[in-house]
């Protein structure tokens, strides 16, 4: 489904990603872990199409297409979704109106009819229950005045409505208390299917107790320094990132 080959990317002229190669198969859940500044969010941003990054080498194939050539909205329409680490507040634009515009743009791309108001509302009401989000937030402006937890739930709620083929969760767990974390994880798990892949970007192992990954990759200084199964995440929890960082340090010096 997603094939990243030797990806190099700069931010503000500085190289952040230094050759990432990774393949995510259909139905798989991959976790990308790493310390601060290792390039996790840059990777997520490059995949979603954030313009402030410059890809200097490598390529990314999504369903066989060159993902990096696609505009952010085209990626979304093709089934890529990113849950933001810091969801943006947009005053004056209602959550519901926005979500309807988004869903219909995606449906139109798939050659499906636009949902009418009734069908849309019934879809919304089912999906909002998955994340136990207050319905009153639907009528409010996007993320405006939402608490940190509400913003993260809103991301997963949007994901549940838009039903992407590839979901990228960028530190969705950061700053969440254990209850909110469980709710968010339950939302994500309910969308798991053999057709859908997930890339979980996180700093902490804790989320992976709830969203159990098939593969874990550790990103240090812009490179994947180790890949393994779930036990790698547990090892990291015990030892921290230090041992891997020093290993990389000796390898590159």
């Amino acid at each position, binding site marked *: 489904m997603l094939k990243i080959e030797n990806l190099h990317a700069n931010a503000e002229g500085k190289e952040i990603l230094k050759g990432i190669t990774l393949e995510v198969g259909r139905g798989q859940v991959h976790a990308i872990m790493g310390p601060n500044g290792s390039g996790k969010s840059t990777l997520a941003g490059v995949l979603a199409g954030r313009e402030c990054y410059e890809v200097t080498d490598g390529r990314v194939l999504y369903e066989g297409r060159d993902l990096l050539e696609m505009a952010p909205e085209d990626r979304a329409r093709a089934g890529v979704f990113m849950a933001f680490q810091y969801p*943006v507040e947009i005053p*004056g634009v209602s959550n519901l109106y926005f979500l309807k515009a988004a869903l219909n743009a995606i449906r139109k791309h798939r050659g499906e009819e636009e949902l009418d108001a009734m069908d849309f509302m019934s879809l919304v009401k089912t999906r909002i229950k998955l994340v136990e989000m207050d319905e009153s937030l639907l009528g409010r402006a996007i993320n405006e005045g939402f608490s940190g937890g509400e913003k993260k739930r809103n991301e997963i709620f949007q994901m549940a409505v838009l039903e992407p083929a590839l979901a990228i969760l960028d530190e969705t767990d950061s700053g969440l208390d254990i209850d909110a974390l469980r709710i968010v994880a339950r939302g994500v798990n309910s969308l798991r299917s053999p057709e859908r892949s997930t890339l979980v970007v996180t700093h902490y192992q804790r989320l992976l107790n709830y969203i159990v990954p098939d593969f874990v990759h550790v990103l240090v200084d812009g490179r994947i320094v180790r890949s393994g199964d779930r036990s790698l995440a547990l090892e990291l929890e015990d030892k921290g990132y230090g041992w891997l960082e020093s290993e990389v340090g000796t390898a590159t010096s």
Partner: protein
Amino acid sequence: MARTESKERVSPSGLAALAAGIAAPEVLWLKRLRQSALRRFEALGLPTTRDEEWRQTNVQALGEIRLTRPEVATLSRADLDTMPAAAGLGCPRAVVVNGRFDASLSDLDDLPAGLQVEALSRALRSRPELLEPSLGRVAPFENRAFTALNTAAFEDGTVVSIAPRTIAETPIEILHVAVAGGLSPAIHPRTLVVAGDSSQAAVVETYLSLDGEVHLTNAVTEIVVGENAILDHARIQWENDRAYHFGAVQARQARASRYTNHNIAFGAALARNDVGSVLEGEGAEATLNGLYLATGRQHVDNHTILDHAAPHCPSRELYKGILSGRAHVVFNGRIVVRPGAQKTDAKQSNNSLLLSNDALIHTRPQLEIYADDVKCTHGATIGHLEDDALFYLRTRGIDLDEARTLLIRGFVGDVLDRIAHAPLRARLAERVLAATAPGTAAGGDA
């Protein structure tokens, strides 16, 4: 106000001469009023940028136009149909062409009971006693050259009178059409709205140009809001981009009255609007909403004055606008709290969205507070469409153009949502989106 005699000042003699040529109706008080207004205009002359109130708005170009007294233009309904913004709003309408009330184009058969809309010239003959306390007395011209000029020069206009306790369910529209025809007419529409005690009504004034030629529109609207009365007043200025527009709206509010003004400025070549209300009676409430859209080299200047002269009066002011191209916008919001106007609660904000790097906005709050138990707040913001917000919307499948539209609609949403009449609200929203769409002068540089 600082005035200086200077050689650069445009001689007002041409305009004054036009005014002097107009026959006033045979009413003595009005004759005197117009004579003193003419003298005042001659003494003041056209403002220069040395006048404190006109520092950012240069009207010198007016002096270079050979203005004429407007022809009596006869329009057909088919002519009106050529202007999309003149399409009916589903409510009774008075049509004023070049400052003269046109009964044949007006649709006033289905006026709500208690509501009267008639030509100013006719009202002056039939019931001058209604007009005498208000006409020329609500809008001061002592320090205002353009109001003085209008007072001296208006040929006709519109009087809306709302009887006490009348509740009008639909608004009344007054459509002002300027027909320039290459003659550069100086048009002076005059409007008076008297809302009786405990009445409730809405008035929509629309100012349009029939053609794309130069004209001067110098309009004055006086509003009297009786005790416990509610008046909603929208003023839509939507003329061609060669027009010069000066518009003054002055309201006077009695006890427990509510006046709401929506000042919609879609721009002429140069538009200057002065909107003010005097809160004379205890518990009166004023709301000033503003929306400006300026593109190309348009100049839009909004000056507002909320004059709190009585205690327990809240006022709310929200002015928002979108600038693009090399547009120049001025917002000057003055709030005066007179001695004794305790418990005044005034809030003002001005937010501008810049779609280009060459647009310019001057925003200035001006608070003059002479009472000690009051609450006055003000704030101004100037911003661009945020890249983060655009990106967020795009990652959900919404394309760049639609994302921009969503953000722009979101920006003006709170001002537009306050316009109660749905057909008008929809028309204005459509205009905002059309004018800022990609491919237009405003949207092109995004």
